[in-house]
């Protein structure tokens, strides 16, 4: 290495260090001890998708949790120490960090991880270690069944899709449907499996089943076929980035029947991307930001004040998830993993921003989803 390149190297490294020092402020685990002695002190670990392509989910989730944490600390009923870790959306990372939280940090409970695929790996391990784990964004089938210590407060696709399809049929009297789904993604594939089941249960005639891949930009081939078959309804299991483009192209081709989407299709981004073409999209969601409810209004206000954006479904679910966890810790009365697990299982009729929540005996959420439709570039309740 010549002298000059050595110098360059040093400067570069110094620059990197300075930048890191400037950036490393994100951990907000303030552990103010409460005044009275009878408050339960507990440590909760959070596994979140903070770096990589899905970082926006992780950000919303940690924002929701941090907000809830701040409010609960102010209330002073329980004293919870937060430990937020990144999983980068990878199973190995999620498992390593779960081991770290359970064994090095000795947390009493875990919230997360973000993706269902990560939960598939982390869930059994947490169950083996006897650490209660609460998923706030896992919608795939079979998550709470992973173990006695595994819970979730996000509604699965098997609950959301039947609700929206049923309502759409009631309203439009649909008989013939076309299904369109992304076949290379766990999320959209799981949504499709539910749609297929629902169509069978409701005696709908499935005219065609078309597939697409993540990141595809041209859906004309599939849409042309769908158009020629003249369905009453299109069931589309897509994430919002692909979904919005599908809607846009479908409307331009003259397909003006309503679309029913899954959980991943539910995002304000759809309206931003597709504009007027988004009208007529029906989704079932646990979260409706414009609900006429004190709690919801306060949450939306506080969240916007703190982070400068409207809370989405993931933020709301995480916010409620943390409240549920705090409630369970309070009820358990001590920072004991088994006691917290039992208290979680006993949570009933908890009123959160999502609505009324209870856990069934497997640890899955019991909740009524709200069915929404986009009308005039806005989500409104679908009646």
């Amino acid at each position, binding site marked *: 290495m010549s002298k000059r390149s050595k110098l360059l190297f040093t400067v570069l490294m110094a620059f990197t260090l300075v930048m890191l020092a400037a950036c490393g402020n994100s951990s907000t685990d303030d552990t103010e001890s409460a005044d009275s002695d009878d408050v339960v002190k507990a440590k909760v670990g959070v596994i979140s998708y903070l770096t990589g392509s899905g970082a926006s989910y992780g950000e919303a989730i940690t924002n929701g949790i941090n907000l809830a944490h701040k409010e609960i600390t102010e209330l002073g009923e329980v004293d919870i120490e937060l430990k937020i870790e990144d999983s980068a959306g990878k199973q190995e990372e999620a498992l390593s960090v779960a*081991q770290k939280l359970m064994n090095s940090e000795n947390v009493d409970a875990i919230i997360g991880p973000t993706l269902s695929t990560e939960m598939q790996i982390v869930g059994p391990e947490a169950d*083996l270690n006897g650490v209660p784990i609460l998923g706030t964004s896992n919608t795939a089938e079979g998550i709470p069944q992973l173990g006695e210590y595994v819970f979730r407060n996000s509604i699965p696709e098997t609950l959301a899709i039947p609700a929206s399809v049923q309502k759409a049929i009631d309203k439009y009297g649909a008989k013939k449907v076309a299904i369109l789904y992304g076949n290379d993604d766990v999320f959209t594939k799981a949504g499709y*499996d539910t749609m297929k089941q629902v169509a069978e249960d409701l005696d709908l005639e499935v005219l065609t089943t078309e597939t697409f891949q993540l990141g595809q930009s041209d859906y004309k081939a599939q849409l042309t076929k769908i158009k020629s078959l003249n369905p009453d309804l299109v069931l589309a299991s897509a994430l919002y980035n692909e979904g919005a483009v599908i809607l846009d192209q479908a409307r331009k081709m003259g397909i003006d029947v309503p679309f029913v989407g899954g959980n991943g299709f539910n995002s304000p981004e759809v309206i931003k991307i597709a504009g007027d073409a988004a009208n007529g999209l029906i989704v079932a969601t646990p979260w409706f930001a414009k609900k006429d409810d004190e709690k919801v209004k306060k949450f939306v206000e506080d969240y916007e004040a703190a982070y400068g954006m409207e809370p989405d479904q993931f933020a709301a679910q995480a916010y409620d998830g943390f409240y549920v966890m705090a409630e369970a810790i309070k009820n358990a009365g001590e920072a004991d993993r088994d006691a917290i697990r039992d208290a979680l299982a006993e949570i009933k009729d908890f009123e959160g921003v999502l609505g009324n929540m209870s856990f069934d005996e497997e640890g899955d959420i019991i909740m009524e989803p709200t069915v929404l439709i986009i009308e005039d570039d806005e989500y409104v309740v679908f009646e």
Partner: protein
Amino acid sequence: MLGELINPYYLQVSSFILINIILAVSIYITLGTGQLSLGHAGFMSIGAYTTAILTLNYNMPLVLGVIIAAIVTGIVGTLIGIPALRLQGVYLAIATLGFGEVVRVLFINWDGLTNGAIGLSGIPHLGREIFNLSKSMGIEPDMFGLKNNQFISLAVFFVLLIITISVIWFFVRQNNSRIGRAFSAIKMDEEASEAMGINITYYKVLAFGQGAMLAGFAGALYAHLMAYISPSDFDYHRAVEILIFSIFGGSEVIWGSIFGAVFLSAMPEFLRFINEYRFMIYGALLVLMMAFRPQGIIDVNMMNRFKRLMPKKRGEKKHGTGNKEDQ
């Protein structure tokens, strides 16, 4: 005592490092004959799916599943290796990249067998199988003062450690054999080595098949370590990651690839305290490495210098060929 010292977190990270070492060695062998492959994620997935399907659907014992997976992947690798002979450099890289994608799409669409994009869950877990086995033999973790999860992590770690050491030992030995010298000769200059009477076809296909087999083996172990696999685990990013292990650490000597796997798998864990920014360092390191040390961190010269520092051992072999990493 012992119970407090053993932290499953460190053992977990170490287990992933060991699997990554096997993957790095697998690409090192292929690179060792000058063949650049981006299909190792594909081979890995074939191994993982083979053992997962065999153990799940046909109740095959775990050990047998892993062995069959390695053999199947070896056969597939050899079949791919033969037509791949006609391609060189970037063209081979693109062809193998295509192969990896074909395998991934196949697993996505073969719904009945692979459960599509949702993936296979409930695969027998290596640690839990050992745990149950030792329990049935009357060995309880309490006897060593361990908790169940500590025992499981420790058992997995030792099994993988033994496997990885055997793999490294085997390929270090092979490098110093007739086969290894033939590989090096082909990497240096194909025409010249052909003129020297080396059967290029045979050795290149052998290297490709060996690399594939080892990647499939690592994939099978991965499946039993995670107990859940889906096609998205084995996408293009994985192929590049495997390649980077070897390129970063140095693809000239086996120790370089091993170092790359250890360093690059451990680093994100050590950098956890800066959370969101750790992968920036990862990227910065790769750029710096490419700018200042394109041959990788550990190269032949460094190994030689290192060896000169070490006390000379029995016999003092004199070597004139390209293989300098014998112990």
